[in-house]
């Protein structure tokens, strides 16, 4: 079986946070304790959307040491393939769902003297859990959080109420922006930087930190990659000897699974490397979207990460 261990849960609370974001609370169906986890971990939520099974990763935002429930926040993506729409429109309190054990690809570096968090939009969620963890352990942290508008600033109120000194909020519509260069310059020795948000923000933080001389291992990032829709394409699976069609609104990984072929995965977001698949033959062009493969690997035409990447062309043969 692929992916992390599964847990059967019940939806016990659904709270609209603002126009775009809704929060879901899960408790175990059997009433038992959920595993404790480390801040930054995500869970993969299984959604039975008619014929289609969707598995989307969401950061756990609840207190990592509270085993009674997990909470996640889902941002509605009207142009996406439907996972977030399913959560927003179909899921109801009392529904039973399956989620995975926590998996952490964005952990705190516990050696850090100080943790500097940079969040953009829904990228706030892993930090909510990390902040709770650091508050328990007595860690030193600071948050800089960029939102589009006050109305879309998820959890701004609770953060500024509980942590007025640590929290700094910036609103795009008021032309406020993080003064990153100065912020980085002013950090004490031993500070680690964490960024979670849109791709542009992550690239900006990483390149600015690099230019300022920050070592790579002190800058941590997590980007939420949802598989994007795209043109349908056909794939031959050489090992299982099947030809499958990948639809416009499903990922290559989902199409492989739909054909009954067990393929490895963990994050389903292009970050963990588990789903790496060898390409045996192709004629056409890859649309690589993962963070895992090196640029040369992506250009080589020998590897693809089917959880997020697609293909356009005549022939694609995979070693699966």
């Amino acid at each position, binding site marked *: 079986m692929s992916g992390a*261990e599964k847990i059967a849960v019940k939806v016990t609370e659904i709270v609209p946070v603002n126009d775009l974001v809704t929060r879901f609370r899960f408790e175990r169906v059997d009433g038992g304790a959920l595993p404790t986890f480390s801040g930054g*971990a995500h869970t993969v939520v299984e959604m039975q959307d008619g014929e289609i099974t969707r598995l989307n990763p969401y950061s756990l935002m609840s207190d990592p040491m509270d085993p009674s429930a997990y909470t996640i926040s889902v941002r509605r993506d009207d142009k996406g393939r439907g996972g977030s729409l399913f959560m927003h429109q179909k899921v109801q309190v009392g529904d039973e769902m399956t989620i995975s054990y926590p*998996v952490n690809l964005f952990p705190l570096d*516990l*050696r850090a003297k100080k943790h500097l968090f940079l969040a953009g939009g829904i990228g706030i969620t892993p930090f909510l859990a990390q902040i709770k963890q650091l508050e328990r352990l007595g860690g030193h942290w600071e948050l800089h959080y960029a939102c589009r508008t006050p109305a879309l600033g998820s959890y701004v109120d609770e953060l500024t109420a509980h942590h007025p000194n640590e929290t700094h909020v910036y609103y795009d519509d008021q032309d406020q922006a993080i003064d990153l260069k100065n912020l980085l310059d002013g950090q004490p020795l031993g500070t680690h930087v964490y960024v979670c948000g849109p791709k542009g923000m992550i690239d900006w933080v990483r390149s600015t930190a690099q230019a300022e001389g920050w070592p790579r291992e002190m800058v941590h990032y997590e980007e939420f990659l949802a598989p994007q829709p795209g043109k349908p394409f056909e794939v031959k699976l050489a090992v299982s000897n099947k030809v499958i069609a990948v639809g416009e609104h499903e990922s290559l990984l989902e199409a492989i699974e739909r054909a009954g072929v067990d393929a490895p995965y963990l994050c389903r977001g292009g970050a963990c*490397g588990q789903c790496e698949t060898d390409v045996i033959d192709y004629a056409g062009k890859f649309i690589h979207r993962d963070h895992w493969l090196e640029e040369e690997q992506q250009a080589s035409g020998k590897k693809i990460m089917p959880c997020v990447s697609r293909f356009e062309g005549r022939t694609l043969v995979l070693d699966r």
Partner: protein
Amino acid sequence: MTIQFNDETFRDDYTFRNSDWALKRFPFPFHEDSYMYSVNMEQHRGGPEGSVYEKRFDVDEHYVSEMRDRAQVLSEDPLRCQSLPHMTLAGWDVLELIMVSKSEDYPDLFELHRDGNRWRWINKPLGIDDTFTFLDEATLPYGPLEYITRQTQGDFAVLDQRDDNLWMDAGMVTTQADWSLDFDIGMNFFEWHAPVPMAHEKGIFVRALKFLMNIQQGAPARRLNWTMTVNPLLDTSPENYHKWGIQKTTLTPENIGAKQHLRVELQTFFRLPRSNALVFPIRCYLCSFQDLMTVPKWGRRLHRVVRDLPAELATYKGFIDNRPLMLDYLSGFDDGLPTSPGIWPDLETEPPLAK
């Protein structure tokens, strides 16, 4: 079953013995008639009843005496247990994992009562009944890692995971096959494996690291490793090589059956919940050649494995000089008959020695 704990020593007069029960469940490490390094890992989700795989942390008849031996090693050399400052949380994770596992798997021996962060731990074989506050070091006589591993068989390496590597940043190491925590502390996966022959070239460590970094909560894994030890010594450390290295020269055709031991490590891997660290318990099982030879399949197979093992491995494992003596002895238990696949003794189905 209730376990009868042996009163025995792993030094000086070496009164260590395996009962019939312990011999039958010995984790014989060879599933075929030859051996080479490989990424031999499988899920750690129980195993045949009574086998060393059944429980998350196996407790056997040597428990109480092994813990006495560990205490003695620590009193002479406190650096056998170390934890870098950022690993304290991982230490609590290990403590919780072991207390929960043991109290669930051996309710007659261990009890854990939790009331919020107020925990009461009862260890009947060692006569311990302690109440403490979870995550508050001041309420325990030692740090959390040392406290719980003084009560658990096997060595423990605790690995921090960062920067696409694993770092040996904490551990309790008193029953090791010639490596040192004090030397390896702070090293990464490739650095501490540097002395191992042949495996780097075969790409084994690159694949093993990838596997380990993807081990997730709730899905532990395991593998077996092995070496040879003269006399049933737990502490074969580089620090004490001057004491035990010399014992390797005391083997004779007369005493080899009793003195030469196959040393098997059951290595398990668990992802820790709060720290995201990995704990790597290395549990050592010893069995004398003469006891092993009572299982015909194991006698045949051990001879073939030792005979055909590449010299690099026999050198690294430290028995190249004694190999001729071992082969003289072991050949007496190999009649050339085929052996059944797998590690189990298969006493009912395998033919007796025809020699």
